[in-house]
């Protein structure tokens, strides 16, 4: 193992590469000696957490902005007189106001959560409830301020991450799937279904589904930025072709929302995987870089 040449370790400084084992505290405070490696370098960790904060604020402020006109359309235009394919609204009923979520031809009663919910202690027509929006109270102007602040941070942070990852070959080596990875997709799917997490040498690399998920979410963030810019009338005059690329201004707005939903899905799966794979070890590796290699209990492999 000392001569291990897994790709993630290749270019580490000697001080780190020569480091074979370490005393670890496990989740229960027990001290064990196990092999580990320096999995996440500082720029990756820093940009990861800045990104997480940005995503949180962008989602919260985005939902507050959405509440100003909680309807989604397809095409160049769309307003009250057009039929939305998705909307959150409130209607009167015999039993009082109801929150209605409309998706295509279907309508769902979502009273109390979507369309009609309590904010500042009072029930009111409101797309998304106060506990998911930033700020909690309905305030389009300030939600936009939060949104654009974190949008700029996201862009610079994302560019820094991409530049570093390309320069250090982190992207090419650790994230871009190899041919062998692609061929291993069925097996990896099976491993995920069985909740089987890699041990030993395999734990030094991302599995192929993980690689595809990270690439996918990177693409989603790029799409978020582009669809967001396509909603800007100033930016439309700069790059009008973006309007055509996304099928119109309202389509771009809808795609912005759909991509945001997919990012939420990614975050949920990401967090579930962190918990399943060992939350202490995973979170620590993203805080100080060190990842303890889970012991191989099955006896296969080295």
């Amino acid at each position: 193992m000392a001569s291990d040449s897994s790709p993630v370790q290749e270019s580490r400084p000697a001080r780190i590469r020569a480091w074979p084992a370490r005393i670890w505290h496990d989740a229960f405070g027990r001290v064990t000696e196990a092999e580990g490696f320096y999995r996440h370098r500082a720029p990756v960790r820093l940009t990861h957490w800045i990104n997480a904060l940005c995503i949180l604020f962008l989602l919260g402020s985005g939902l507050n902005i959405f509440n100003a006109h909680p309807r989604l359309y397809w095409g160049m235009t769309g307003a009250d007189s057009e039929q939305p394919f998705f909307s959150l609204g409130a209607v009167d009923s015999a039993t009082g106001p109801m929150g209605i979520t409309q998706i295509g031809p279907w309508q769902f009663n979502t009273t109390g959560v979507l369309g009609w919910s309590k904010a500042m202690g009072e029930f009111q027509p409101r797309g998304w409830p106060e506990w998911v929006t930033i700020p909690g109270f309905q305030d389009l102007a300030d939600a936009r301020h939060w949104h654009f602040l974190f949008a700029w941070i996201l862009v610079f942070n994302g560019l820094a991450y991409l530049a570093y990852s390309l320069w250090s070959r982190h992207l090419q080596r650790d994230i871009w799937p190899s041919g062998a990875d692609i061929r291993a997709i069925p097996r990896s799917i099976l491993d995920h279904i069985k909740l089987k997490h890699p041990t030993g040498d395999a734990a030094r690399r991302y599995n192929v589904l993980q690689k595809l998920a990270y690439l996918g979410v990177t693409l989603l963030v790029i799409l978020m930025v582009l669809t967001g810019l396509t909603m800007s009338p100033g930016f439309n005059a700069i790059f009008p072709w973006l309007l055509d690329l996304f099928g119109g201004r309202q389509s771009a707005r809808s795609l912005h929302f759909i991509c945001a939903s997919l990012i939420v899905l990614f975050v949920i799966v990401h967090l579930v995987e962190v918990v399943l794979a060992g939350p202490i070890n995973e979170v620590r590796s993203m805080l100080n870089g060190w990842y303890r290699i889970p012991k191989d209990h099955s006896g296969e492999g080295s």
Partner: protein
Amino acid sequence: MADVKDITRRIAILGGLGGAGYLIAKADTLTLGASFSHVAKAVEDWTMTAQRGLLGDRLAREYSPSDISPVFKPNGTFNPGTDEYNAHAAQNFAGWRLRIYGLVNKELSLSLAELRRLPRRTQITRHDCVEGWSAIGMWTGVPLGLLLKAASLKTNARYAVLRCADNLTGEPSKGGEQSPGQYYESIDLRDAFHPQTLMAYALNGKPLDVAHGAPLRLRVERQLGYKQAKYVQSIEITDSFAGIAGGKGGYWEDRGYEWYAGI
């Protein structure tokens, strides 16, 4: 074991997590604070610098007649409803005059009939409300730059401040501060002299109706809907808008919205 580097790193990690936690927990309170508006202003300036750097004199997209929205949603004030405005409306705005004054060498006061005789531009453009919806309409009007040239601006002129006939009492969907106030807007000369910036008197080939800003409204096509001031009575040329109303350059600007509404 724990050397200085380790401790520094721990402080950095805990400090970072603590700072992020504080931001998340206090977002609502921070929103209402003065320092947040300073941050918001800095971000707005940065956005404007970035966009303007790329924009130059580029035109907003113009659409074809078949793209025109069947219904162009009116918003904000639907009818100023004052006695004076009602009297103008009853006479089909025959007595309405647009006054251009301030840092000009030649004050102008133009009737609608006079404006209609001036060179006009017709453009089919998309209107994007800050709330999120869009509509396409065909606007006809006098390029504002033409009027400003006729008024001959003084060298210290920087802004065109448009005052409107409506007292807006807010739009609940926007949330935030909704105090009533006289509607006004301001744009700088770069936008004022842009070829698509019009003082529009017709929508879709018909004289502007009351809900859409009769008899005269601004079209500044590379910005959001709230910049498109309706019911325009006068244009004051100034070197600053700090002393006007809330000092932020517009009705919605005084209520927290960006002065540069290109995004």
